[in-house]
């Protein structure tokens, strides 16, 4: 159900656990679906010996996709008008991620009610892995 402007106010937050104990297999699923087969995301031998990272890590876009799931569950399907993030830390297998949206403004634009949000996703230790903003069209 789309979110109604009457039911929210600035400062409201919505949180969701968007992955638990992230598996290497889920990262491989994302590689296969997205088409990004960069070995740093699935190839432990390459990652340790060539790229110089301690472990494979999730695609930034997997973390953004997981974060987007929280947003669409909150604001409704097909309602996003903008969504942008910075990838602030790498996400490694085993991560449990919680994504949060905070309403920062409710405004009118071309006859539509629009909610602006801050978006943040943190891992199980509270380290922020994604930080950004989103906007969505509300019911009025």
């Amino acid at each position, binding site marked *: 159900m*789309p979110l109604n402007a009457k039911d929210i106010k600035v400062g409201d937050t919505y949180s969701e656990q*968007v*992955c638990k104990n992230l598996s290497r297999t*889920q990262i491989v*699923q*994302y590689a*296969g*679906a*997205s*088409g*990004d*087969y*960069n*070995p*740093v995301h699935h*190839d432990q*031998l*390459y990652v*340790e*010996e*060539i*790229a*110089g*990272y*301690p*472990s494979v890590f999730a*695609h*930034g*876009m*997997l973390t*953004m*996709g*997981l974060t*987007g*799931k929280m*947003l*669409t*569950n909150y604001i*409704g*399907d*097909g309602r*996003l*008008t*903008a*969504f*942008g*993030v*910075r*990838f602030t*830390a*790498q996400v*490694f297998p085993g991560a449990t991620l919680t994504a949060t949206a905070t309403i920062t403004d409710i405004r009118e634009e071309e006859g539509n009610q629009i909610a602006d949000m801050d978006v943040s996703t943190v891992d199980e*230790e509270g*380290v922020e892995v994604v930080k*950004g903003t989103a906007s969505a069209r509300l019911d009025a």
Partner: protein
Amino acid sequence: MAVDRFPIEAGHVIMFARSIGEVNDIYYNEDYAKGAEPGAILAPPTFVQASAQFDSDYFLRPKIGQEWFGSAKGPTGITPSEPSGGDTKKSSGGGGLHAEQRYVYHKPIKVGDVLSAITKPGASWEKEGRRGGNLMFTESVTEYRDQNGDLVVTATSVGVRTERPATVKE
């Protein structure tokens, strides 16, 4: 990058939705979607990234008959003795890291749409990083249009190349 034809296919949307742990029927169930506001199965908000599957030159997909820089028996499939083989140092990190991604949505993307995409280079800048040494950022802007020529999504991507691997958190 230019993608001439990016068909939005139901099976591809299902695979993508599964990979991000989505259970929302709007991505899986045509009957449900027909009765919901969008009226058709939607593509998730970050789905356009999968246009890479339809980019014939996409560099992060093994090309049939060519060496691949990921591991085979050894840590990289690139044969160092071959002049045509890639520079393994250059391939470290597999082309840098993704620093930032922004989408502006103009119109929902539905199964059955056929998109095309054109990418233009954006700004580039350098910054001294705390962990990865000197950081080189480059931006690119991709416009996705549907079969009617309507703009559906504008995607801005910022990539970063680091001098050395960004270390893990302790």
